[in-house]
């Protein structure tokens, strides 16, 4: 029998070629990462944001512009926490990230630490130094002056409240009159006890976690001392812990922020107040589009506080760092930050944009025509700079602290939960 040598030879060759390409594909990857590549008009630059940055329209406009230098493609991730995991993992792996990445402000310190900051491109630009409010700008800079992030927004906090529920419970509901309630934490919790006594199906705030976050943002050294030594056994943190866990069973709906039960409470009168940085506005609107009665008070218990505010950064692994920097700079310029405020309520970190908002005296019909621009400007002025001190492990410990509060909400005793928390903090080092 004649053997079909040719066909066998072909199969053999194909197998060898397959092996060769597989090996080549695995070996060649590293080299291509080194160089920077220029982008043509139809080449795509990628960006990832989380939650709502209000960029949809801006990017549509950018791509519709016939003179655009390149095309932009945005990936949106629903929440910060899963994105933080992906971001951390891909930074350590050295590949997989988009050309521009959005980073939540609380996590910035850990990316500024030695070693970590090498994973980001230096996007310092002397001409931009006066573009953003100082505290936001400097929080995106390493100790030796390398800028790794441009501030997209700031998170000065006001309080959002349900005027209709306040009325039902016999509390003042007018935007001016309720300011008394939100003067101090004591007056705030006292009013809460009154409301839950009148309305048994409604809790005072949206989640224990959000009140903890609000109180933490007023502390000076909640988790780490100025030299980045971890210290969670301090009076400030104890105060936050005691307060939040004390009211867990009475004023809190005991749900986790961003999850199903939390979302459901927006539409079933589950709670009456919540700390409200500008970016929270769009969350309320999308979770409770039909609910009427939301309003915003120009006050915050215990002074002020900043919750969140994010950055656009360029990972060192990007092959288009120049273009990425260009896009990040454009998105954080005056007009674009104003557009983002309009789209998502993200209060600009850009000084000119803040000024423009104050001049325009923007109001929001959803929140009973509340003068949102003025309120957020006032709230921004009330923020004590440098509070809280955010060390390199701030974001990690914050996550563990929120988890500890969740345990108490779910019925674990505060002491037991605290012990688990300190144990978990220890294993971070």
């Amino acid at each position: 029998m004649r053997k079909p040598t040719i066909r066998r030879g072909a199969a053999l060759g194909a197998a060898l070629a397959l092996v060769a390409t597989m090996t080549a594909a695995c070996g060649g990857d590293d080299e291509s990462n080194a160089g920077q590549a220029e982008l043509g008009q139809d080449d795509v630059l990628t960006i990832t944001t989380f939650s709502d940055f209000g960029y949809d329209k801006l990017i549509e406009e950018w791509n519709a512009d016939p003179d655009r230098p390149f095309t932009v493609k945005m990936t949106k991730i629903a929440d910060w926490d899963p994105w933080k995991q992906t971001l951390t993992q891909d930074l350590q792996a050295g590949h997989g990230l988009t050309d521009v990445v959005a980073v939540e402000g609380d996590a910035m310190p850990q990316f500024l630490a030695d070693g970590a900051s090498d994973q980001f491109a230096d996007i310092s630009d002397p001409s931009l130094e006066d573009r953003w409010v100082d505290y936001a700008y400097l929080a995106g800079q390493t100790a030796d002056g390398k800028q790794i992030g441009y501030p997209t927004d700031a998170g000065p906090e006001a309080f959002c409240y349900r005027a209709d529920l306040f009325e039902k419970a016999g509390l003042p509901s007018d935007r001016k009159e309720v300011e008394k309630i939100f003067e101090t934490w004591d007056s705030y919790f006292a009013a809460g006890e009154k409301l839950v006594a009148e309305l048994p199906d409604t809790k005072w705030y949206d989640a224990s976690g959000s009140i903890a976050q609000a109180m933490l943002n007023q502390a000076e050294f909640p988790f780490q001392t100025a030299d980045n030594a971890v210290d969670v056994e301090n009076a400030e943190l104890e105060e936050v812990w005691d307060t939040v866990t004390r009211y867990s069973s009475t004023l809190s709906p005991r749900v986790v922020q961003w999850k199903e039960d939390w979302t459901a409470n927006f539409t079933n009168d589950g709670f009456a107040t919540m700390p409200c940085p500008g970016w929270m506005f769009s969350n309320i609107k999308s979770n409770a589009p039909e609910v009427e009665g939301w309003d915003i008070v120009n006050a915050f218990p215990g002074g002020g506080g900043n919750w969140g505010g994010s950055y656009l950064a360029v990972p060192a692994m990007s092959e288009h760092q120049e273009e990425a920097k260009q896009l990040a700079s454009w998105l954080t310029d005056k007009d674009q930050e104003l557009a983002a405020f309009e789209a998502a309520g993200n209060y600009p970190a850009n000084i000119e944009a803040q000024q423009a908002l104050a001049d325009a005296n923007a109001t929001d019909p959803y929140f009973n025509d509340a003068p949102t621009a003025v309120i957020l400007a006032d709230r921004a002025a009330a923020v004590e700079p440098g509070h809280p001190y955010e060390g390199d492990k701030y974001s990690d410990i914050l996550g563990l602290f929120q988890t500890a509060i969740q345990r108490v909400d779910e019925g674990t005793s505060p002491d037991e939960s605290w012990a688990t928390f300190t144990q978990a903090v220890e294993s971070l080092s």
Partner: protein
Amino acid sequence: MTTVHAPGPPETRTAAGTTPPRLTWRQKLSRWDTRFSPVLYVVPFFVVFGLVGVYPMVYSAYLSFFSWPRFGPTHGPGVGFANYAHVLADPVFHKAFWNTVGIFLLSSVPQVVIATVIAAMLDTPLRGRTWWRMSVLLPFVVAPAATALIFGSLFADQSGLVNEVLRAIGLPGISWHSDRLASWTAIASMVNYRWTGYNTLIILAALQAIPRQLYEAAAIDGARPLQQFFHVTLPSIRPTMLFVIITSTIGGMQIFTEPRLFDTNLQFQGGADYQYQTLTMYVFNASNSGTDPYPRAAAATWIIVVVIVGIAALNYLLTRRLQGRGER
């Protein structure tokens, strides 16, 4: 290279003492073909396996003895067995271990039992048999992520359908995300939803291979249907049962998607008190943390390997015992 030590194909072998005739090019080619092509055919698999299987395993074993600077691009200095010590002493790891075992038992045992019962029912002359058989496989087609999202909202602690039904019939709602056993049950139910149908079809195939004469003989001997099931059906499908049990054991040790998407904890710790963190979630979280991420994850992985090998050995012993009994 003229000396050939290995015996060639029979037709080219020559008697001792005589000079072997010169082979033609075509003959040589054919000789090489029979000798080397089998090796070449399997080479691609081993190359790919080496690249994506062996290399990562060896490298992870190597990594597990090092530290890792926060957000550093490469590993730091060696630390000996410190990573193993950390994982073994970590109370979270202990919890994850028992969670995995618990979820595994709650999913695999009912799964195999229910699958066998459904398969036995489908094996009867039912009207619209094909339709019934296809429909048991339907949940398997649903993506695990979709399953987890659907069950996640069914089992939501306050707004979930399950608790609303419970409350409607006067029972207290169950804290699906904070009670350890309840959370295992919820997760196991997702696994069961997805895999019972798959196992049913496998067992059904085994059932149909049983010679019908056995049943006739049993019936003539006066065995009732239930007796037939226990004394004819079950012994006949023992090898298939073992296959189903082993695959569901492997699946059980690797369970990840369901608990991860079921999680209400924002740090994905598998519940605020690690109630349903599984071993694979532990590895995943370790590799995502800022502290010695990959070395600790690698150490945890190798500990899990040892655990799985232990379970496999146990399985093997059980199998032998069962088979020995079957042959008696």
